[in-house]
């Protein structure tokens, strides 16, 4: 008997004996032996189903609401994308709602631009200011001088924005998203004929080969693929899926890999074609798949003549034996699948490299089969949001835009080298619909604050992470905290103020009515049945989750598709002057910066570096030693575009010729928690690379490092070099 048990029994016997005289049972005694649990008062709470818009993955959420306040966000178990799971960013949405620095009412600029001096005004004043400017445009027959800037829109919201612009008479709608998977849609269209995003059956695969696809932190649908990854590893009785990661920087995703191939930046496409050649040479390819897609082995081998193992090994900087081994494993461990991600796509030769990897899947017979890749993973989407930005910037620069209506934070999330920020400064009237005084709102003349996600109606269509037409519904879970108005309702109210043609084109009393109409049209095109119970049910379950259809669209390699031929990667900056490659990547807590205002995410230690409340530059320890840089030193990173001072993190999982900086920090605004913290690496990037068509080439800039001082003021939650105790723990 343990000492504790003995004492408990002893105490009870004694007390029982004492009480035995007056009370037969000892029930009354027990509450004193079980102490009250730490002040817990279990209460009843209500859960509302909604959808997350913290990133384009569009997971379903359940919000726990008690006493009229949102308390906790959980994943919606019914939602097919995230199945009850949720990432750190999704849970922090509650801090968007209750952020202490939210814009509480409309503001009008009262000092010079960018100084953050604003005067509070009423909504009537704000709306008439905006409508006044727009009416002036109409009067001067300059309706096309209104520009709308938003993230990519979908469903009812896209319809509303398009309707507004059409009725007003402006074609200027910029939809920019730094990490948008446009490149993947383009590659899919060129290879298979439809601009869709693929769906990867990671859970059932036996060999996962990721070319820079960081599906745990940012790629396409992190929660969906994170869940699938867990199943791939340990859900099947006898199979443990193998994972190989290709990329110059070991990302959070790469950290879970069994094998890491640190290929030279820009050589990933060559590696994919080298693997393809090894497969075909040894006849490990899937002959039936090749025939079905109308491809000939001999002809492909002719295209691949230059990709012999020695050349590939030399160009990628990888051992030839490792490449040969991966080829053999990829071909023989079926079903296998290859993913391609941002680390590859944002190189100057990204588009061709992505296609090479799609071809690799075809060769191994991985298309349209369990454990493989389904090219038709979601509906078609935009492809050219980046290149479409340039004409808009040019127009702004030439004075062709008089009013800019902005939702989102493009001033922080567009690389300044594109000239966007400079051009925007020349726009006479900027309206921002922000929830916080972010970098864009600071530049604005008028701020008409938007609702937080948890106060809004809306539609969230997941960009990937499923094969069926999933539509998540956002519903308000609390009464609005501030005197704000949802962005779509602002458009409707503006249309009413404008009157005439514009008001007639937008006859909806509120966005909610439009949303209902669009949903009704989608679910019940005939319009016969009673919609009220259908709508109530949609709200209860958090959206419309149709079961997987039987018919999977048949995707075939286009007969006119050119054979992928990635050129040698080009970089901005001469190698002698700028010896290191730069990779920028979405910090797992901040994505492209929209997580940075929330204190939970700021104090969440970065998984790989354990840094808190900061941004940093990752350097291979050997490179750092050569430059005399120590952990935590302040370092100046210089590119042809600019310079940035950041603390150094010695990072064993990165190539010696590569440095990496996380995205998201370096905001001038964004509330007390984000403001003035870290640096924004987008300021270092070149907008385009010489000799390459405009495309997002965020990894095609070279930099050099100089040590500034020992005062990097870096704070890490863990030991900087990792704890030595791992050996003791046996993990």
């Amino acid at each position: 008997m343990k000492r504790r048990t003995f004492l408990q029994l002893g105490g009870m016997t004694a007390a029982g004996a004492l009480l035995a005289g007056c009370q037969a049972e000892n029930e009354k005694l027990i509450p004193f032996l079980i102490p009250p649990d730490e002040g817990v008062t279990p209460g009843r709470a209500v859960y509302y189903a909604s959808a997350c818009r913290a990133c384009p993955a569009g997971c379903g959420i359940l919000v726990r609401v008690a006493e009229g306040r949102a308390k906790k966000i959980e994943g919606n178990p019914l939602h097919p994308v995230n199945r009850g799971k949720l990432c750190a960013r999704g849970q922090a949405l509650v801090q968007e709602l209750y952020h202490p620095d939210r814009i509480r009412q409309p503001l009008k600029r009262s000092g010079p631009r960018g100084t953050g001096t604003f005067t509070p005004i009423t909504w009537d004043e704000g709306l008439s200011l905006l409508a006044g400017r727009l009416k002036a445009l109409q009067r001067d027959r300059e309706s096309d001088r209104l520009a709308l800037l938003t993230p990519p829109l979908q469903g009812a919201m896209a319809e509303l924005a398009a309707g507004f612009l059409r009725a007003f008479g402006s074609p200027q709608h910029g939809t920019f998203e730094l990490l948008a998977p446009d490149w993947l849609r383009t590659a899919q269209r060129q290879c298979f004929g439809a601009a869709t995003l693929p769906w990867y059956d990671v859970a059932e695969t036996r060999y996962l080969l990721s070319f820079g696809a960081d599906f745990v932190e940012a790629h396409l649908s992190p929660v969906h693929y994170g869940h699938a990854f867990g199943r791939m590893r340990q859900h099947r009785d006898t199979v443990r899926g193998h994972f190989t990661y290709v990329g110059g920087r070991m990302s959070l995703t790469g950290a879970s890999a069994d094998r890491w191939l640190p290929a030279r930046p820009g050589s990933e496409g060559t590696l994919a074609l080298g693997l393809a050649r090894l497969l075909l040479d040894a006849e490990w390819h899937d002959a039936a798949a090749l025939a079905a897609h109308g491809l000939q082995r001999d002809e492909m081998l002719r295209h691949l003549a230059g990709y012999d193992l020695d050349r590939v090994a030399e160009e990628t900087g990888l051992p030839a034996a490792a490449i040969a081994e991966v080829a053999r494993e990829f071909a023989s461990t079926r079903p296998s699948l290859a993913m391609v991600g941002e680390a590859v796509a944002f190189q100057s030769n990204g588009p061709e490299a992505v296609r090479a990897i799609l071809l690799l899947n075809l060769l191994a017979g991985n298309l349209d089969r369990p454990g493989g890749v389904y090219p038709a993973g979601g509906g078609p989407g935009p492809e050219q949001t980046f290149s479409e930005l340039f004409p808009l910037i040019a127009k702004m620069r030439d004075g062709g835009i008089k009013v800019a209506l902005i939702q989102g934070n493009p001033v922080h999330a567009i690389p300044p080298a594109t000239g966007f920020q400079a051009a925007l400064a020349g726009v006479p009237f900027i309206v921002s619909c922000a929830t916080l005084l972010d970098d864009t709102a600071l530049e604005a003349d008028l701020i008409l604050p938007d609702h937080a996600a948890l106060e809004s109606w809306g539609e969230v269509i997941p960009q990937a992470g499923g094969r069926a037409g999933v539509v998540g519904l956002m519903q308000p879970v609390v009464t609005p905290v501030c005197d704000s108005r949802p962005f779509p309702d602002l458009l409707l109210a503006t249309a009413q103020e404008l009157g005439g043609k514009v008001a007639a084109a937008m006859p909806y009393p509120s966005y909610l009515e439009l949303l209902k109409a669009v949903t009704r049209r989608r679910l019940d095109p005939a319009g016969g049945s009673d919609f009220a119970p259908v709508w109530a049910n949609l709200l209860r379950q958090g959206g419309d989750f149709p079961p997987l259809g039987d018919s999977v669209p048949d995707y075939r390699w286009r007969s006119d598709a050119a054979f992928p031929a990635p050129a040698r990667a080009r970089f901005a900056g001469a190698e002698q002057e700028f010896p290191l490659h730069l990779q920028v990547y979405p910090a797992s807590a901040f994505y492209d910066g929209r997580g940075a205002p929330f204190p939970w995410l700021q104090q969440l230690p970065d998984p790989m570096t354990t840094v808190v409340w900061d941004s940093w530059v990752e350097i291979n320890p050997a490179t750092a030693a050569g430059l005399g840089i120590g952990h935590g030193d302040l370092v100046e990173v210089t590119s042809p575009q600019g310079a940035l001072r950041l603390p150094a993190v010695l990072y064993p999982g990165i190539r010696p010729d590569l440095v990496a900086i996380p995205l998201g920090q370096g905001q001038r605004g964004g509330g007390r928690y984000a403001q003035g913290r870290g640096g924004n690496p987008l300021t270092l990037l070149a907008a385009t690379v010489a000799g390459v068509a405009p495309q997002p080439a965020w990894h095609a800039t070279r930099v050099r490092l100089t040590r500034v001082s020992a005062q990097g003021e870096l704070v890490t939650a863990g030991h900087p070099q990792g704890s030595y105790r791992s050996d003791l723990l046996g993990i």
Partner: protein
Amino acid sequence: MGKLTSPYRWGMVIDLDRCTGCGACVVACQAENNVALCDKQQIGEGRGMHWLRIERFWVGTYPDVRVRFLPVLCQHCHDAPCEPVCPVYASYHNPDGLNGQVYNRCVGTRYCGNNCPYAVRVFNFYQHEWPPPLADQLSPDITVRSRGVMEKCSFCIQRIRRAKEEATGEGRLVRDGEVQPACAQTCPAEALVFGNLADPHSRVARLARSPRRFQLLEQLGTHPSVYYLKGGGREHV
């Protein structure tokens, strides 16, 4: 005697082969349990507040380098080093096998934190604040701890109590999977599994019998309620 024996022995299994180190559990725990916000200076002093942390280990040098993640939370030891040292019985063992902490008994000696080999107890060195309206997000189920009080993971005891009350009302035991702490609920890869180890058929008990099983600092004889499953493979890295 029957009153002293609980049908529950709550425990957790953490599968390191599934864990990707993403940090979703860390934020879920902060959100559920009103864990304080800490600024850079406080964390720099080693006075950050977290009930669950993810340890990161680098092993080897480039290019043969690998990373291991290890989520560490209160191990809810059955022979807990933190319990006997508390002079005021703020740290106690409850019949379900949980290692409890009674905040209003705690006088802040920090003996328990000192004696914990897993370093999972965190002390409120500061009076932490939630600038309004951020305080509206605080859960009404849990007290907000003031300065001078020790706190730690409770396996989300408020959720366990809620489930037990519901089950008792229906005259049954808590079903497997009915109650989950916030960390296990949100874990995208399902690396964390929580349940009743006293029920041999529960998912957690079945996983805890895995040959990959180990416990943290097993040699200390603390008999933790948390089992880890070794990550497999990764031999080529």
